């Protein structure tokens, strides 16, 4: 391998690296992808796989809605085991204040041609009979979907591989520079473009980029088909998720194609240990039970944690950064949306590499945009 030269070298075989590899090779570039462990076993294996159009900033909307379009284009070719399912998102409003948010969201989405439907309390409980009574209503976004992301990452990599991309699995990159990478086994790979797509590991290879690890807990139940029908998220989520400095939990429950219920989620900064933390797990489960009391009787078969790669403004870093002897490329910082936005990210990255016109403005995701710790949209 030493000595071989590629157009693009992608470090990281998560869903983001995998999507970038496929997009690059399809655009005629000579590609190599390196993964230190197993394809899709990082944050991609930990995440919920909710494909969701977000409205917390124009840029977030542009990237998520473009990505959902790309997911719909991809859907037919995905294997069954990718569990792609258009379950829709149901934003749950607990009180009048949150119903005002439903109204705001509705006009935001409608004015941008995203289908939505406002549910009154009766319609809400018909849609989701296990939600507690007394909730104020909800907003259904029917075209949002769910996937099993490790299978998608592998699928994208295999496709890229078939199209000629070289895959180096089980090798750790110890350093990158604008013209290639050095591996722990002493080998090197040269490339015209080097992309750091290592998610929450990315500051390790590119020190100084504004990416922080944000830990999350999840729990999954045995099979209870029909217990939950849509991805359910409380509207308090927005307030909570934006509390960048403190820990938070939110009611965030998902139906899997297997009939299992995936229960999330928590957000924490400043923790590097992947161990389950009892207080966080308890807080998260209690929040879920507050909204869905019947969850208490379901069997939990497993709990786990994962790390999101968070940026100060909640937008990913996609594009080049200037370093001493040239430019390094980034495709990281996707926080809690990287499964959704992996496909859009790949498109934006390769557009920039090739100087192609993009479907959406690229500037909001430039790594050198001014990022102040206290700024965030929405």
């Amino acid at each position, binding site marked *: 391998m030493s000595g071989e030269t590629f157009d693009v070298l992608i470090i990281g075989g998560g869903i983001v690296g995998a999507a970038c590899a496929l997009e690059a090779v399809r655009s005629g570039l000579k590609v190599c992808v390196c993964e230190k462990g197993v394809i899709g076993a990082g944050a991609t294996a930990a995440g919920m796989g909710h494909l969701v159009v977000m409205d917390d900033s124009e840029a977030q909307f542009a990237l998520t809605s473009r990505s959902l379009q790309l997911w719909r284009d991809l859907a037919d070719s995905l294997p069954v085991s990718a569990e792609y399912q258009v379950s829709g998102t149901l934003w749950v409003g607990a009180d009048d204040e949150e119903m005002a948010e439903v109204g705001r969201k509705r006009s935001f989405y409608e004015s941008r041609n995203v289908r939505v439907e406002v549910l009154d309390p009766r319609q809400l409980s018909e849609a989701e009979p296990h939600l507690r009574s007394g909730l104020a209503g909800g907003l259904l976004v029917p075209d949002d979907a769910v996937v099993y992301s490790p299978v998608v990452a592998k699928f994208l990599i295999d496709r890229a591989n078939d199209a000629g991309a070289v895959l180096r699995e089980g090798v750790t990159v110890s350093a990158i520079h604008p013209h290639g990478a050095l591996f722990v086994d002493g080998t090197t790979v040269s490339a015209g473009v080097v992309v750091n797509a290592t998610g929450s590991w990315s500051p390790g290879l590119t020190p100084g980029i504004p990416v922080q690890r944000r830990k999350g807990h999840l729990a999954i139940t045995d099979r209870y088909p029909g217990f939950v029908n849509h991805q359910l998220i409380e509207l308090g989520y927005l307030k909570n998720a934006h509390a960048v400095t403190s820990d938070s939990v939110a009611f965030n429950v998902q139906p899997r194609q297997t009939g299992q219920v995936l229960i999330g989620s928590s957000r924490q900064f400043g923790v590097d240990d992947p161990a389950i933390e*009892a207080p966080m797990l308890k807080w998260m489960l209690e929040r879920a039970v507050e909204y869905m009391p019947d969850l208490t*009787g379901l069997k*939990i078969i497993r709990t786990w944690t994962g790390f999101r790669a968070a940026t100060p403004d909640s937008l990913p870093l996609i594009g080049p950064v200037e370093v001493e002897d040239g430019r390094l490329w980034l495709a990281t910082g996707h926080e809690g949306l990287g499964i959704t936005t992996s496909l859009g990210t790949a498109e934006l990255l390769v557009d920039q590499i090739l100087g192609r016109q993009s479907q959406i403005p690229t500037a909001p995701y430039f790594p050198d945009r001014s990022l102040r710790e206290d700024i965030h949209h929405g």
Partner: protein
Amino acid sequence: MAERLMGDSVESDICIIGAGPAGLSAAVAALERASSVTVVDENVHPGGQIWRHDQIKGENPELRVLMNRLPRERVNLISSATVIAAPAKGRLIAETPHGATPISYQRLILATGARERFLPFPGWTLQNVTGVGGLQALVKGGLKIADQRIVIAGSGPLLLAVAAYLKQVGARVVLIAEQAPRRRLIRFGLSLFSNPARLGQALTLKRQLSGIPYLTDCYPVAADGEDKVRRVILQQGAKIWQVECDYFACSFHLLPNLELASLLNCGIEAGRVVVDNSQRTSEPDIYSAGEATGVGGLELSILEGRIAGYMASGNLPGAARLFRRRDRARRFARLLDQTFASTAVLRELPSDQTIVCRCEDVALGSLREHRSWKAAKLQSRCGMGPCQGRICGPAVEMLLGWQPDSVRPPALAARLDTLLLTAELAEGQNTQEWSKE
């Protein structure tokens, strides 16, 4: 013995997990010095694998002898309670039908027994293909088996014990197929002469089984049938033939239940809990006895249980008296393991289409594509179902040489409210104790 089914908390000086021969023997021994003990078992009835099913139709005499020595004022028997987590030192959480029960202890005895080992072959998921002990339990539970044709296959002494039982209740046991080679069994048979009691048992068993062919070096290559199993295809050397049957009972010896020991950080080697001469595990104040420390049969389980009970109650002389007998029984146990170890040919049984993981319907072929257990699990969902790899894990290990991953809470599937209580009791604890990756 007082049976309780409630969800409130239990304090105990000595707590025993498992009400099989080892756990109950431990309780009896401990009561010679201790004023009370707690015994927890996940089943409705005490007695473990070997005795509990008899409870449905009246009591097993051996069990009655033990139970008579466990007065209800001094023994807190918590039935239908599965221990699923250890949120802090000296604390366990058991799940019962009435809620989660926190249990605190000073000394703990893990007598969690063993389960049957299954290896996949084409047709093993057909209806009426069961485990060997599994079929016995079904019959004791009321399954009508009289005049049904039964083929028993796999490995281990359990095949013989269950064949004798099924014959006695009127089933037609067509044949017993033991995968172990004949020369190993001859060596094993000779060793029985050094133990007259065992030889006596063996001869009684032989008499009971007269007329039933016992084939060695013989294993099932497939089970076949449309709606349910109709015939089994067997192989012995170069010979392959088919046998008609109504039930096919098959399992390959036993595997210690290690989930709790692993959750509690106890040392585990070669698939069993490591214990010293006094049945102490690597963790302070935690003992283990019975099949959890290695599959060795009833006598060894009882002896280990008694030693653990004596040790936990500070009765060293009581324990020391039993060491020699226990050591002798343990040598026999190791011989059992060697005799009934699976031969390499069993790895060839499943085809690429054979289901390995029954929870998630994963076929062997879709595992073979991957380089590691981690990748295979992630892509195929093998081992991600409700049993969390307890059934497919050992099969995968044998077939592909991959080590399954670690246990974390809940060690066994648990209700959400149980997990909530567990988390509450763990709050403020070092997170490593609550969950190790």
